[in-house]
């Protein structure tokens, strides 16, 4: 027993995560030691530097293909690409999170524990600067996501799941306005998320029972050459999948999405819609492609039904929404369905097109929520659809931007929404999943209606008495919007570089 050897650790390969976690811890110290006035500036700078440094570390690793730290972390093409995507999208989300000029003190409350509606609460909603704990929490979440997409065994994946989920639960509860809704959202997300994590863990245990190991490579070998009852395998796979499908917001595990997206502070909603989606699908891709490729015929139809259900439920319910954030939430559910169609192609095309879709959708959705933060009245964001009527008259620039993003969501050519949808549907036809594409097309038709309704509201309706103003965005929101819109346009017109990048990256190590 004395010769217990430490596993070899490739610190270079782990650097992106180590940087984020390290700076997040540093951020907590700043919280404790730095004077209140300077915290915002210090934290914001630190966070940006951390993300940039981490991104550089990812770029440096771009050709690394190895499994390190005792088989716990795999650094390969998809890892590098998805980590880069999470960091890029995370940086844009951070711009929205760090915005302090649109509303005095920012979108976050200073002390979330104060009773809602009390005198003290009204005072803090009025003028106190928002909590700066959001920065370390965001960094922890992003770090967890990086680990999540690179985890090479089920336990590491579970740990990563918890690491990125817990900060998100907290962040959801920190909205400055509509505090009750925000807290309700956080609680809902926390409870359902915990159940999902429990499912995941239970599934991991069953798979361990089946395969005698938890690393994805070991599971793959056991699937190819089963030694024990396959009941364990299928039950375990189902439970693990439920945990992942919950995070990816696929029907019937999507019911938290509209409530949480609506209740959370909008910058956090943007973070979840962009980055969490990348992380969840990254993990789903790895689990399905690396471990369970041998039983593809068994899970493909089941997940296919889930994809169809998700696309239809998301599209149909989006039609009936009257709140902008809920509409975008259901649209993100439907988009998760399109992503799953790409995943289910189960070929290299499927992997690369799903990764492309994640990036394309991420930038568009960040821009969409960025605009939601700008349309406000005295009580904060005016998210009810009727309030957006005639906005095109009052602020053509923002209405035009939002229209462009909606056209991207609807998959009109010359936007990234079209090329991304084309890529995943093409991969699915290639992979013999034509029926999924047909349902995808039907769902796109349904989904075009709510988008078009918003466009009509913006441009063709007369502005009402209560049409809110569009705030002048601060520098950071403006930058986030610009990046989102440019990415949406560029990936629609010249998608070739990113497609080539995803193709080069589309190879897992086992």
């Amino acid at each position: 027993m004395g010769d217990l050897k430490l596993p070899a650790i490739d610190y270079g390969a782990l650097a992106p995560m180590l940087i984020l976690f390290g700076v997040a811890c540093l951020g907590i110290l700043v919280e404790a030691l730095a004077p209140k006035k300077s915290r915002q500036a210090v934290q914001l700078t630190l966070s940006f530097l951390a993300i940039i440094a981490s991104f550089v570390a990812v770029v440096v690793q771009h050709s690394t293909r190895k499994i390190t730290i005792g088989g716990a972390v795999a650094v390969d093409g998809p890892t590098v690409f998805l980590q880069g995507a999470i960091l890029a999208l995370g940086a844009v989300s951070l711009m929205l999170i760090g915005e302090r000029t649109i509303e005095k003190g920012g979108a976050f409350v200073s002390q979330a524990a104060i009773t809602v509606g009390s005198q003290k609460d009204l005072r803090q909603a009025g003028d106190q600067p928002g909590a700066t704990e959001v920065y370390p929490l965001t960094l922890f979440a992003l770090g967890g996501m990086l680990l999540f997409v690179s985890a090479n065994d089920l336990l590491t994946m579970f740990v990563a799941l918890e690491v990125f989920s817990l900060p998100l639960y907290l962040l959801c509860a920190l909205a400055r306005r509509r505090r009750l809704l925000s807290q309700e959202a956080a609680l809902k997300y926390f409870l359902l998320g915990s159940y999902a994590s429990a499912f995941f863990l239970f599934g991991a245990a069953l798979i361990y029972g089946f395969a005698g190991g938890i690393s994805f490579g070991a599971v793959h070998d056991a699937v190819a050459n089963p030694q024990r009852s396959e009941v364990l395998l299928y039950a375990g796979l189902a439970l693990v999948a439920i945990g992942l499908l919950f995070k990816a917001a696929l029907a019937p595990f999507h019911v938290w999405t509209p409530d949480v997206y609506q209740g959370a502070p909008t910058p956090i909603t943007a973070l979840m819609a962009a980055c969490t989606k990348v992380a969840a699908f990254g993990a789903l891709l790895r689990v399905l492609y690396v471990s369970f490729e041998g039983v593809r015929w068994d899970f493909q139809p089941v997940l296919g039904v889930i994809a169809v259900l998700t696309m239809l439920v998301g599209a149909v319910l989006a039609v009936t929404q009257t709140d902008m954030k809920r509409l975008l939430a259901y649209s993100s559910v439907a988009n998760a369905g399109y992503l799953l169609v790409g995943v289910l192609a189960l070929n290299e095309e499927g992997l690369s097109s799903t990764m492309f879709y994640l990036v394309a959708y991420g930038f568009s959705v960040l821009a969409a929520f960025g605009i939601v933060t700008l349309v406000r009245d005295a009580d904060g964001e005016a998210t009810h659809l009727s309030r957006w009527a005639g906005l095109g008259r009052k602020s053509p620039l923002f209405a035009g931007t939002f229209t462009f993003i909606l056209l991207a969501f609807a998959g009109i050519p010359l936007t990234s929404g079209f090329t991304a949808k084309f890529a995943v549907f093409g991969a699915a036809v290639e992979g013999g999943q034509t029926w999924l594409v047909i349902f995808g097309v039907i769902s796109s038709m349904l989904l075009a209606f709510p988008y078009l309704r918003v466009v009509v509201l913006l441009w063709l309706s007369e502005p009402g008495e209560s049409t809110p103003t569009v705030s002048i965005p601060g520098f950071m929101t403006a930058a986030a919007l610009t990046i989102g819109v440019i990415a949406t346009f560029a990936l629609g017109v010249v998608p070739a570089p990113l497609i080539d990048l995803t193709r080069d990256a589309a190879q897992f190590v086992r």
Partner: protein
Amino acid sequence: MSDFPFLSILTLLPLVGAVVVGVIPRRKAELAKTIALIWSLVVLVLSIFMWVAFKIDGDRFQFHESYQWIPSWDARFTFAADGIALVMLMLIAVLTPVVILASWHDVDGDGKRSAPVYFALLLAFEFTMIGVFAAADIFLFYVFFEVMLIPMYFIIGSFGGARRQYAAVKFFLYSLVGGLFMLAAVIGLWVVGGHTFDFSKLLQSVGEIDQNTSRWLFLGFFVAFAIKAPFFPFHTWLPDAGGAAPAGAAALLVGVMDKVGTFGILRYCLPLFPEASRWFAPAALVLAVIGIIYAALLAVGQNDLKRLVSYTSIAHFGFIGIGIFAFTTQGGTGSVLYMVNHGLATGLLFIVVGMFVARRGSSLVSDFGGAGKLVPVLAGVLFFAGLASLALPGTAPFISEFLVLIGTFTVHKVYAVIATVGIILAAAYVLWMVQRTTQGTLNPALEEVPAMRKDITLREKVVVAPLILLLLLLGFYPKPVTDVINPAVQATMQDVGTTDPGPTAVTANGRAAR
């Protein structure tokens, strides 16, 4: 001269113009209009040069250009035009300046709506139209096919008449539904056709697609084109859109945009899926014939001038449809010629109706009556446009309608005979419309409207003159156009027949081939 990159420049020119006009401040409306007009005339001149450079006995596809776009999908910016595309490009190039001039005062005196935006949208629409006809890469074609909805959506939605919101949304959703069916088919074609979008490469490889797949793919394309054209029973969006759009835009919508449907069937459905085309031909013929009769009957009963003209167009698209699916060279040439002539005749009809509507402030037939006594020349133009539209001999549509009918009669006598009834109905709806608006006793309410006392202005004369001239010219001497169309149609019909045992089976033996 033929090395000159005509098609890419022709495509991009209106886009640049749209941007230039769009950024002009709304106060300088006159400047914006003038620039838009000059810009569209430059496009017209360029396309005339292209027409001259086109070699009638040359290759089927000329002016070929290709630039790299998305290498991993083999999607390229490929442009090429055959005779069919060339005449459509000419049509759009002629109609756009006419429509711009006709719409000169459409957005005047209205503080809410911006004139530069309107004319920029018209140029943007011309850009997408030229692109859709010039593309020889299916991915590029699809991109233009979808993008062309956006300028038209805003033209109808922001500058249209009473029910413009409803009409714009209906228009957009109908077209988008068709487009998405086509998207599925485009993806399918890409996968089974060897991972390329290049039209000429696909022509080589489609022979290997199995019959069932080919039929599904045909259906995907056909539904999109049938909605766009529109054929019965996918037509219900057109009367709403045509009725709500400003008259000039409606002329472009019905005159050019709807031709994308019939053009798409000729360019993509027939050559790429010959077997499926023959298999579906009886169904398509039945739909086309129903469309001719049904739309003509509805047109007779319309009280709204713009809706009436829209319904007449649906009937005309039925004629184009039977001409295409008869699979004879006469029928095919007749159909393409019909597309051009219908663009001119219906374009003129819409524009003249627009002049009446602008004066009266209403598009209802019952609000007119005896208008010829007040505006005799304008009423005469309406009469001429109506006669052209019902294909009176001596006007261009007569030749195309005649070609379509004899082309169809040689293979499908029954359909041709039923379609002939449509001609009688056409006489009914046109003559009734002309009679109830311009003839008879003067409606006393008309005299109250000061604008109705003003007969055709110089600007309006300049608008209608080229269209009238072209209609007469092509009515007596269509050879320049048919010479361009014929080789392309023959090549298309050959594509349909190539996989058929015996090259004459389709034309001479159409019944057996079914």
